[in-house]
């Protein structure tokens, strides 16, 4: 029976994609947009922070790294719940009136993936640090020149970190559900739509949507692999 449902889902996915179903296109584009903004915000914070941690030696560095590594495993529903409490009308950030908006989902996803970007960027920079630092220095580089050279060398790995973070944001459900509420035409994204269809017993459609979600994730992973090979 399950194989039958999967087959049905596959057929439905092909039909949905081929027909260019307007609602599906809208949900997919919204999902991409929400996660794109999340990644922009997370990268703006995470890349400089990860680079700074990787490039500098300071007291408590190991602890800071451990905290970010631990935060990678943060459950999305827990983060969604915290954000919900902060953004709800009676919460400290309620005045922003962001609850149940795509902006709230983007902010939540950004918070979710910042630890990924920070940790991976730190590792990427540290992996290249010691000998390259000496090389740049012996060629007369200043500390700033040296840092730029190391970041340039780590750029491919940093891109990999950002793409991995995008995948995580794009495929998460808890935050989108808690602070977006899956409102049709407003905050519905692929993952919340999949959950809704599953609840409604529309397994075929759920599978079709999951296939589309995975196709996007796999495409991005493919790009990451190409980058890794080049590196």
């Amino acid at each position, binding site marked *: 029976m399950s194989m039958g449902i999967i087959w049905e889902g596959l057929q439905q996915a092909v039909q949905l994609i081929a027909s260019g179903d307007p609602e599906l296109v809208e949900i997919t584009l919204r999902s991409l947009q929400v996660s794109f903004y999340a990644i922009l915000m997370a990268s703006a914070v995470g890349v400089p922070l990860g680079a700074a941690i990787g490039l500098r030696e300071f007291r408590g560095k190991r602890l800071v790294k451990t905290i970010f590594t631990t935060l990678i495993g943060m459950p999305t529903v827990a983060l969604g719940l915290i954000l919900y409490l902060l953004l709800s009308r009676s919460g400290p950030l309620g005045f922003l009136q962001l609850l149940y908006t795509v902006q709230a989902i983007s902010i939540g996803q950004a918070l979710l993936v910042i630890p990924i970007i920070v940790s991976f960027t730190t590792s990427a920079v540290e992996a290249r640090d010691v000998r*390259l630092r000496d090389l740049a*220095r012996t060629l007369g580089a200043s500390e700033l020149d040296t840092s730029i050279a190391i970041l340039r060398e780590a750029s491919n790995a940093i891109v990999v970190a950002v793409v991995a973070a995008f995948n995580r944001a794009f495929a998460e459900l808890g935050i989108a559900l808690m602070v977006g509420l899956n409102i049709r035409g407003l905050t519905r994204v692929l993952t919340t739509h999949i959950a809704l269809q599953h609840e409604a017993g529309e397994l075929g459609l759920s599978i079709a949507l999951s296939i589309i979600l995975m196709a996007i994730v796999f495409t991005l992973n493919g790009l990451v692999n190409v980058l890794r090979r080049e590196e």
Partner: protein
Amino acid sequence: MRSIYELDDVSKSYGKLVALEGLTFNIEGAPTAVLGYSGAGKTTLLRLLAGLETPSAGMIRFKGAKVTEKNLRSLRRVVTMLFQDTLFFNQSVLENVTYGLRIRGVGKEEAARRARETLASLRLEGFENRKAAKLSGGEQQRVALARALVLEPEVLLLDEPTANLDPANATVIGEVIQEFAKKGLVIISTHDFLHVRRLTKWAVYLEKGRVVETGETRDLLDNPKDERTRRFLNGLF
């Protein structure tokens, strides 16, 4: 003759590990060899002379001025070190060789012209656009030397520059070092006694982080005064 380097009771430790202890000697203008077993402290000494590290104790003077944390960078602008294991930025040969010039503010065209000239002197014409990290060991060593020489440093520090190289590559590198030695100071750490004899005029022998013997290269190689130096030269432990 005024010394280029003056070392006064220089020690270097890493935690409990003492890499160098009580080094006191001067290096004047003559090409200098740093000799010693693996682990004797040769690379550490070169790193101190290159301004990549500072002594844990004692003092180094470069052309009369004390080397401190504050003036390390100005020292590194005139002293360049070639590492034993060649390392490159993930870029082309030309980009690697022009790096030091570009950060000194030399224009792109001028930097490329000077880099091409230096590459040619090391018989590396046509290598400009190749990935430096994908060249053979000998070619990489020559590119690394070009990258150092294009900066026209006052001092060139070479850590085992001909280790694991075939004779042809070793000869090219030897010739270029000899040419450089006419205008700048070369300090070379190597186990290749043939190169030591040909390229240097003065030598210092280190053992377990301490200076055992210094002197003119020929004297030190042919008539070592210390039994430990003799054993080293005869390949004995």
